[in-house]
């Protein structure tokens, strides 16, 4: 039974740690693995190196490899299994297409010098630990009052002291006498 071959567009996500060792080595590993399963690799080129929209297995960046292949459905399923088990590929997608675009066919198996593939170092983001907000220390109102206004006992002592300082004449006069003096004056005014 002859297996019918289809055209597939494939995208491979390569681990940057492996690509740093050599892009061509990673690309060749993908190519040989595909060919091992009878897949005809028409195009295999670097699509880009970019930040992932969400982390995959602790990786925040990845190198994307685009391929156009001619393969049978069974071969695609089998090669997927091996790609995920071994090598630099940690995610891949195969899509069946009608034909290979001419622009892509012109690229073929892209040869790039390893030095041209620049992969930035993944900088581990240091989480800034926010210091808990501490309100400035304010003395309680009662204590403030205590500092401003002395206690009743103290006040009385101070009052006594103040009274002691006052001239003796005023202190000797009783309150009632003073009132009486005033009443006499009123009477005098009335007369």
């Amino acid at each position, binding site marked *: 039974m002859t297996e019918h071959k289809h055209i597939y567009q494939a995208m491979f996500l390569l681990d940057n740690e492996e690509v740093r060792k050599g892009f061509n080595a990673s690309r060749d590993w993908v190519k040989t693995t595909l060919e091992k399963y009878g897949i005809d690799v028409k195009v295999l080129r670097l699509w880009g190196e970019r930040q992932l929209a*969400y982390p995959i297995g602790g990786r925040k960046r990845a190198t994307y490899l685009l391929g156009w292949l001619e393969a049978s459905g069974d071969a695609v399923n089998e090669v997927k299994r091996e790609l995920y088990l071994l090598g630099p590929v940690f*995610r891949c*997608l195969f899509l069946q297409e009608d034909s290979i675009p001419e622009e892509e066919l012109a690229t073929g198996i892209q040869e790039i010098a390893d030095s041209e593939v620049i992969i930035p170092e993944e900088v581990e983001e240091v989480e800034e630990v926010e210091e808990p907000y501490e309100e400035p220390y304010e003395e309680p109102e009662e204590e403030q009052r205590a500092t401003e206004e002395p206690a009743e006992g103290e006040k009385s002592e101070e009052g006594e002291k103040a009274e002691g300082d006052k001239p003796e004449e005023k202190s000797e006069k009783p309150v009632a006498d003073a009132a009486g003096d005033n009443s006499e004056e009123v009477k005098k005014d009335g007369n």
Partner: protein
Amino acid sequence: MATKNSRTFDFKDIESLEVFMTSHGKIHPAKRTGLRAREQRRLKRAIKYARFLALIPFTS
């Protein structure tokens, strides 16, 4: 097969896909995109492929 007037979407063309998505990463309904049912299905598929390849987020 795409007809003359029908629109196709490429999962690699992130900028054109993001036009049909909310800021949170959800796909706009056909009522809002104005696409035909077949085109809306193509858009949905392209966005889902792009999400799988971590080109666009599932949510944000």
